[in-house]
């Protein structure tokens, strides 16, 4: 299945603005991100704690929905999904 990852802010530095992936089998968002972490050590350092867990508060949206309101890291991906990754921004 074909999915698109759009990265913003600091994450762009590590994986570029947009990448298209052709996944050979079903994956969850958690599996995809872990795989990305393997391929991009800088991204892994930025997004994952040393324990291997994704850092809290990173924004991960699939087709405009925050995964926290789907099945979180267990949210299954589907053909055509567009994933957006952006850092928490809360100041004012």
């Amino acid at each position, binding site marked *: 299945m074909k999915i698109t990852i*759009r990265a*913003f*802010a600091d994450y*762009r530095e590590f994986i570029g603005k947009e990448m298209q992936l052709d996944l050979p089998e079903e994956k969850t968002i958690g599996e995809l991100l872990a795989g990305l972490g393997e391929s991009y050590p800088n991204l892994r350092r930025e997004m994952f704690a040393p324990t291997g867990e994704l850092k*809290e*508060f990173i*924004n991960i*949206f699939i*087709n*405009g*929905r*925050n995964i*926290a*309101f789907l099945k979180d890291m267990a949210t299954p991906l589907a053909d055509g999904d567009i994933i*957006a990754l*952006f*850092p*928490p*921004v*809360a*100041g*004012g």
Partner: protein
Amino acid sequence: MGEHDAGRYQRQIPLLGVEGQERLRRARVLVAGVGGLGTVVAACLAAAGVGALRLVDNDKVELSNLNRQLLFIPDDIGRDKAAAAMEKLQLLNPEIRVEGINRTIDDKTVDDLVKDIDLIVDALDNFTTRFILNKVAFSRRLPLIHGAVRGFFGQAATLIPGRTGCLKCLFAKSPPGEIFPILGSTCGVIGAIQATETVKVLTDIGEPLANRLFLWDGQSGEGDIIITKRNPQCVICGGD
């Protein structure tokens, strides 16, 4: 609208029309937070002729605010932000009504603060209070103009009860408070976008950032849009 008013706004009346300008004059806007975002938004709205601005902040002006909180000068250090901002805005535009309220926005105070308000600007620095504002905006059916900044980055969205999801559809948790790094011009970008959105919603001109999240990357000079969807199970607005 007097001749004096027409003169002051003559460069924007071709955009808004006399009717649009009148809508701004009749509007009452709450600016929640009078810091980096709030001072920029409030100044833009005062200059545009929004008839009534209610500024709310519980803090005092500090030296480190001056890199970005453009309504404050060194003599304001130690003063209540709401009062100092009110004074400057009233000087900027004597034709409008400006209230400066020194108060913490929480579950106990928020209902009074939104009384007689038509639209809320989120110029806050934490999500805990943003969620309080979001809840009252959606229960009172008031448009909420969300904005947030950090460093060179910023985001903005326009949340309209009945038309879009709410802030809780987009963000789940409140990141811990921090002394965040911030450049004044980042506040300038996002604050001005929030002011533009406010004018658009009040005058019904243009297309608001509805069901869209605007992301600003000042480091690379790029703006992007993420199309967003409401959460049908949202505890705040689900089923709306």
